[in-house]
């Protein structure tokens, strides 16, 4: 092996109560990337099989356990898909409150990512703890925003980790007017902080790394969160029912997690894809702030994902406030549901991107089969493609530590479920 041949292995240890173990395998020869494989070797979790034989009533709470960061995405997608299957249209109150609850998940997930994971990279710190020594106000602001998101999830779900409020047909419980009024006060306090966050994020000197990629996100009359069709930057617009005709999951030998391609090509889901396709739908006040701070979307620099998250926090806070400001507690939080046999598909925009579900039930509403396509697996092909382009642009002759940090930064742009673990990247370089 020559000096230009490097074997890079990035190992992620197994974490308690955490999904995900991964590695990046990189071989460089003659100044070119010869081989690049993002290896995700998390053990199969069998969630889709667990659901088989279970009553439809159990599904929202079961799928919430798939992710501790975005349980609301899983349970709302499941509830809505099963409602579609049973021909049930939840009342407007339930639809609006689900969107508000979903906003809470975006706020907490994005805040966590920006302040605890991503920004230390851009300011030369190895962790948020180190960054907090010099910039406590930044981390404190992030935790306040995260707390507002958690409070929203808590309001409807009784708890922010694995909430239990959503059911097929509506909610198990409706908060009181007083509880919602206090929540609105907390949102009012958080909104100026989110505006500051956008200004602060826009001023970060991001690496310039423009790439060509296809954005995929849902589209709706409003900035799509919990409802809409699936669209792409190539002009595609399809219903959830057509997903399987355009998107294919498949396995690769080096990873136990599925890869997903659209029409045979990798694609991007998540905040940057949403901003690229739907940013023009944001309220005028946010558009003005973006113009003032020099932010422009569509944007092909993946490092702008952090800024897209900041903008989405601001939007989600305002949207939740809009939905809650004239809140009236309904006489009942749900509606009767009569199960029936059938198949239905549905999707929503999880914090990390498009989340698609498919369920088949028998006449009693027992699950015969389930299929769940999460955003992280959809982004894996794009992450590999990005790493290949980004590392080449960065320069393959950099020191190992610099290469590792750049790989981490690139991977973290996608906030994948292994992003937390990439803080532990170990780089083994074999030079001969």
């Amino acid at each position, binding site marked *: 092996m020559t000096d230009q041949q490097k074997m890079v292995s990035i190992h992620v240890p197994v*974490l*308690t*109560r*955490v*999904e*995900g173990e991964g590695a990046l395998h990189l071989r460089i020869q003659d100044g070119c990337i010869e081989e690049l494989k993002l290896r995700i070797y998390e053990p199969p979790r069998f969630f889709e099989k667990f659901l088989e034989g279970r009553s439809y009533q159990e599904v929202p709470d079961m799928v919430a356990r798939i992710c*501790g*960061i975005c349980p609301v995405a899983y349970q709302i997608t499941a509830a809505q898909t099963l409602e579609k299957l049973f021909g049930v249209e939840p009342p407007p109150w339930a639809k609006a409150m689900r969107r508000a609850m979903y906003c809470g998940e975006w706020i907490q997930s994005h805040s*966590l*990512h920006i302040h*605890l*994971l991503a920004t230390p990279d851009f300011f030369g710190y190895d*962790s*948020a*703890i180190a960054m*907090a*020594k010099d910039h*406590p106000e930044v*981390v*404190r602001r992030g*935790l306040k925003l*995260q*707390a507002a998101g*958690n409070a929203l999830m808590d309001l409807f779900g009784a708890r*922010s*980790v*694995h909430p239990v409020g959503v059911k097929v047909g509506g909610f198990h419980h409706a908060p009181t007017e007083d509880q919602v009024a206090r929540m609105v006060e907390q949102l009012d306090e958080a909104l100026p902080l989110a505006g500051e966050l956008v200004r602060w994020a826009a001023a970060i000197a991001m690496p310039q790394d423009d790439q060509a990629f296809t954005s995929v996100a849902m589209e709706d009359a409003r900035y799509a969160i919990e409802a809409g069709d699936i669209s792409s930057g190539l002009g595609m617009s399809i219903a959830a029912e057509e997903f399987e005709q355009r998107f294919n999951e498949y396995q690769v030998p080096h990873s136990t997690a599925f890869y997903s391609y659209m029409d045979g090509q990798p694609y991007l889901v998540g905040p940057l894809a949403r901003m690229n396709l739907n940013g023009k739908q944001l309220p005028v006040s946010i558009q003005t702030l973006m113009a003032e701070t020099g932010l422009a979307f569509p944007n092909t620099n993946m490092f702008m994902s952090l800024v897209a998250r900041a903008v989405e926090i601001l939007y989600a806070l305002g949207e939740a406030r809009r939905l809650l400001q004239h809140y009236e507690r309904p006489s009942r939080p749900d509606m009767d549901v009569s199960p029936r046999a059938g198949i239905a598909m549905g999707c929503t925009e999880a914090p990390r991107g498009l989340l698609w579900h498919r369920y088949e039930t028998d006449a009693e509403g027992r699950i015969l089969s389930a299929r769940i396509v999460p955003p992280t697996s959809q982004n894996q092909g794009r992450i590999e493609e990005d790493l290949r382009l980004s590392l080449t642009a960065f320069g393959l002759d950099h020191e190992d530590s610099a290469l590792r940090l750049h790989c981490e930064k690139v991977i973290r742009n996608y906030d994948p*479920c292994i*992003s*937390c*673990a990439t*803080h*532990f990247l170990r780089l083994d370089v074999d030079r001969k």
Partner: protein
Amino acid sequence: MLIGSERIKVVGIGSPSSDDQAGWLVIDALANKLPPDVELTKLDRPGSLLISLLEKADKVILIDAMQCGGSPGEIRHFALGEWANYRTGLSSHGLGVFDALMLAKELDCLPETLDLYGIEIGSALPGDQPSDAISDAAEKLAYRIAKGLTAPLGQVAQ
């Protein structure tokens, strides 16, 4: 009032997985042993949420399961200076107790008094019951905590 106007919280961290319930068992054992103004909380991987919880208290007692190579049931009290030695890294999904405490320290969010106890555990298999050693240790630690909080007025409940 037992401790004047102090806001006191006792927080047990755990999961439903056999010995990992240690922190929760201590909270169960403390039920009805403390005055009602002492807040008892069971948490599952609190992560950064722990920081906001710490902010709103004058005194916090934290109990978590630990695996430090000892015998199941061993109880250890951690001093502030030891936290940094037990950090394993910062992550969004797996933000550990020590990480959260270190972050709270940097943000000046720690309560005036913070006691951190670890109970050495063995198996943490989902669905299993905790071992007798863990149940006994939880009772023992609960007694010690109750004694510490109520001794001034001689109200320790056996």
